[in-house]
């Protein structure tokens, strides 16, 4: 099985003054098209760092990120911007919405970034409809015009999920999306992601430290001491 997204020998260290703090020491990770992979690991083990490297938000010190067999981490800025906009969907641990925009406008943001003024005006009905549909889907049909300041944490997180998915990305990178939610809300979010994963054939890499959630995935990997170790779910 060829992998949809993969990383080979990812290394990343942060410099704190003169001391170099190694975070990733040669991470190999991959996910097949449509596969749902969860990443577990202790806090500070570098899970977020790995996700950022996979999603081209940062560049590795060494190693490669490969999408559909093509190396992408060394592409020029324009192309990386484009890949972030079209191919990847991000869900962050802190589910940040832009406070000046309403829920639906926040969800439209990937499209707003993609389109110029004129193409936006041409496509604006479709763009808004997509955003509204997805908000409806995450159960926020009644919160379209609300400002983030008028929404609860769970609602904001679901809006952020809608934002990550509205542009129909191929790869969803989620960094502890349920970390700040109570367990039933968290489970609701996970069910939603799982459905989308099945429906759209979405490749998902999801970071969590909740075992309950991790084991609903097709595969679980563990990040520890800067390296990935496979976990065989059956053994747990």
């Amino acid at each position: 099985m060829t992998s949809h997204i993969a990383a080979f020998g990812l290394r990343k260290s942060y410099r704190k003054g003169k001391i170099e703090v190694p975070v990733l020491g040669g991470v190999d990770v991959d996910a097949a098209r449509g596969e749902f992979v969860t990443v577990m690991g202790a806090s500070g083990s570098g899970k977020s760092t790995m996700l950022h490297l996979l999603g081209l938000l940062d560049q590795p010190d060494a190693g490669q990120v490969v999408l559909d067999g093509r190396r992408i981490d060394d592409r020029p800025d324009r192309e990386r911007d484009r890949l972030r906009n079209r191919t990847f969907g991000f869900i962050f641990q802190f589910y940040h919405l832009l406070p000046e925009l309403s829920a639906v406008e926040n969800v439209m943001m990937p499209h707003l970034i993609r389109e110029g003024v004129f193409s936006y005006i041409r496509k604006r009905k479709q763009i808004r409809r997509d955003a509204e549909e997805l908000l409806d889907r995450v159960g926020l049909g009644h919160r379209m015009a609300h400002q983030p300041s008028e929404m609860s944490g769970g609602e904001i997180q679901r809006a952020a999920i809608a934002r990550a998915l509205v542009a129909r990305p191929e790869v969803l990178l989620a960094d502890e999306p349920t970390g700040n939610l109570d367990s039933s809300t968290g489970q609701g979010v996970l069910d939603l992601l799982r459905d989308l994963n099945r429906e759209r054939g979405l490749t998902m890499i999801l970071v969590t430290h909740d075992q309950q959630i991790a084991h609903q995935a097709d595969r679980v990997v563990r990040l520890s001491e800067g390296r990935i170790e496979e976990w065989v779910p059956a053994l747990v």
Partner: protein
Amino acid sequence: MYKYLLCWRYLRTRYIALASIVSVTLGVATMIVVNSVMAGFADKMRDRLHGVLADLIVESRSYEGFWNYEEVMARVKEVGGDDVVAMAPTMETPGMLRISRGGRPAESRLVQIIGVRPEDRAKVGDFAEHLFDQEGNRIPPSFEVTDAIKALSPAGRDLKALESDPEDTFLKESEREWLESQRDKQVPIHGAILGYALATYHLGNGRDDIYIADIGQKVALAFPMQAKIPQTGADDFTVVGYFKSGMSEYDSTHVYVPLEELQRARNLQRASDGKGSVNQVQIKVREGADLDALADKLQLAMEQLSPMFFHVSTWEQKQGPLLAAVAIEQSILNILLFFIIAVAGFGILAIFSMIVVEKTRDIGILKALGASTAGVRNIFLGYGLLLGAVGSGVGMAGGLLFVRYINEIEKGLSVILKHKVFDDSIYYFDRIPTLVEPHTVVAIVAGALFIAVGASVWPARRAAKMHPVKALRFE
């Protein structure tokens, strides 16, 4: 698309940033008001200067002047052709004016004595327009000492009182003769027109000016005489009117007297034929003619007539220092006021830097969603431009409104402060003159926009350079 949406939203939701452009607004408004008022003043002043001064003046370098002014005028006509509309020979000389009046110590003042033929002078520039009697009524350009003016002398007044007394006819007859002779002594036969500010005391604050030289009163003039050694001469004149142009420089120095009388008194008449000399020929030129070009041509012609003797100048050259002074004042004020806007630029810079820090996470999200570095930079540049546009737009509207209603505002302020803010008697303008020059307004607004955008360049670059991961990890 997101750039425009975000700029627009930032503009509508960040009132603190709007506060930072208040100084842009005030700066733009102040600059527009100051420039409009100064341009108005300068314009009015040019108008009046030009009104009083003839378009072109041919003058001799010596005070003794020249006798061949007919020849000079013929050459001017020859060179200028149809462009020359009217000419007036004039004798201008510095001198002293002495005003004495019963019960008051005599006053002497330095003046510019201008000998003219009034009808000719009236043709070459505004002159007749500025002549008034004591009641403020216009009078014709003439130096004639009429019977009505004679009757205003002290003896004339006594005579009038006598005539209205019906009794005592014998005494009256002898007394009348005496009074008549007195009157003719008191009233010199030649009239003089005094600059209004020479003839009055200005009290200010809405009180009437006090005349120290009434019409019909005798005044004495002293002036340099044509002689082997420098020597002064003097002559008496009767005040027949006042010259009030609104240019205090003229109104406080000019004394107009009949040309021939001044020539006689200064001993400027040729022994051979009694013809007097003049030191200026004032020329009125057809409207729209190129003054500078004509002045050059005339200068050349005058050099041929008599080398190194004549000097031809335009009215603007004559008043060059004054006009230049106004222009310098205006540019200094503009520089100072522009500093206000520049200061506002630093305010924008500070507030923008704050906003960029506050928006760190937003910037991280935008970049994660695929926004480019240039895109993020343009959000803040656009925001700066928008703020500048709002600030200078409001400032422009406010400034133009202020200029439009400046006289009403002045009246209101005068009532509140209980004294006149704009003392119209200083400049004799009944309203504050204003002139809105579109190119000035455009330049001011463009300058303000430039500063607003300039001030946002640094914060915008910082925002654009922000590393997305650092921005996302920002607490």
